[in-house]
């Protein structure tokens, strides 16, 4: 796919235009946002406007690999701050083109129908992510106490040398892991039942991590935000001590981008 890494002209100049996302033209970038670091001079966030669209960009050095913690957090922070004010189509991390002309001519102009339509669909909506982690000791205790087989395994292992009990330990761990998967499914369903009525779209995601309990993304109407957050609080209350919930957002609508269909023949 990236066949053009050398690219057209002798563009060995070391800068490129980094693209964070696409917004409606005429928006103002919130103050105090830090762009991805660019060499010595601190780069600035800017807008490249084309028709009814604008791309949020900053200069980056094309020589430096991207992906430091600061780079990643900057990308996200810029998008989230903008998402508080206007709809925004987030780019995946690492979108760099040669210059601002390319942003206007090759990104915005040819695909404006899709971008405008997508922005329109997202207008008045906010994305939230809900994550929950199990309180490990509480959950493990419950699992062990509710399954005699697991209990036996645990007793068998107790006090036995690590190497000698290696396979028993794997078996014990696997049984617990399965029990937790079962719990995750139930809890994900419970979350959907409790919250999806306050959202226009809900996506269940893999909880991940050994203590991950639930992980969902929600697209919420801006004017339904209070009700949604109240419902999240209620769920947090109901699960207190067992699952610790975190609500992240509003974020740019990473999970609810309207489908893009590539034009049959890419206009090169």
């Amino acid at each position, binding site marked *: 796919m*990236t066949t053009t890494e050398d690219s057209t002209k002798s563009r060995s100049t070391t800068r*490129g235009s980094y693209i964070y996302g696409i917004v409606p033209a005429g928006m103002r970038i919130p103050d105090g946002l830090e762009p991805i670091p660019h060499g010595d001079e601190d780069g600035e966030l800017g807008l490249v406007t084309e028709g009814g669209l604008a791309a949020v960009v900053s200069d980056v050095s094309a020589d430096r690999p991207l992906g430091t913690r600061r780079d990643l957090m900057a990308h*996200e922070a810029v998008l989230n701050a903008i998402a508080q004010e206007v709809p925004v189509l*987030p780019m995946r991390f690492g979108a760099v*083109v040669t210059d601002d002309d390319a942003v206007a001519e090759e990104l915005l102009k040819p695909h404006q129908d899709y971008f405008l339509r997508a922005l329109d669909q997202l207008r008045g909506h906010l994305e939230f992510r809900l994550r929950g*982690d199990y309180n490990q000791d509480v959950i*493990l205790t419950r699992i062990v106490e509710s399954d005699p087989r697991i209990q036996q395994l645990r007793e068998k292992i107790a006090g036995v040398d690590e190497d000698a009990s290696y396979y028993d330990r794997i078996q014990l761990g696997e049984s617990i892991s399965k029990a937790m998967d079962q719990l995750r499914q139930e809890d994900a369903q419970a979350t959907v039942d409790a919250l999806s009525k306050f959202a226009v779209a809900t996506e269940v995601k893999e909880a991940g991590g050994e203590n*991950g309990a639930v992980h969902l993304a929600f697209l919420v109407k801006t004017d339904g935000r209070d009700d949604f957050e109240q419902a999240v609080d*209620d769920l947090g209350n109901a699960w207190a001590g067992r699952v610790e919930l975190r609500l*992240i957002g509003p974020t740019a609508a990473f999970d609810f981008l309207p489908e893009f269909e590539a034009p049959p023949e890419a206009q090169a």
Partner: protein
Amino acid sequence: MTISQQSGGGVQKAPQGGLAEVLDLILDKGLVIDAFVKVSLVGIELITIDARIVVASVDTYLKFAEATNRLDLHQKGGKDLGEFMGGLTEGATEGGAKGKTKGVLDAGKEKWDEVRGERQQSKREKA
């Protein structure tokens, strides 16, 4: 916007997640520039990808076994609670944040931490 740290159920609220959560979003989601731009693309090296190494589930199983083994169930008296909690939370708080990689319980976050050198990881050898 307001950061309401605390509310009824103790649900933490934050405008932005931690690094692992951010990774999850911005490396896997969002519009892919290659789909739109062909000619003027600048191929910049991304150093993030290698950090998300999938670790075999055996590692996770062994961790569960260990944690379970340390559990202070009521029939056994014994371990000092502080020691017990300390041992657990060390592993526990790092958990939930990161994700996907279908089906496999991955410990990518831990790998990431290791890469960043934020904490040393001692449990690797056995696997």
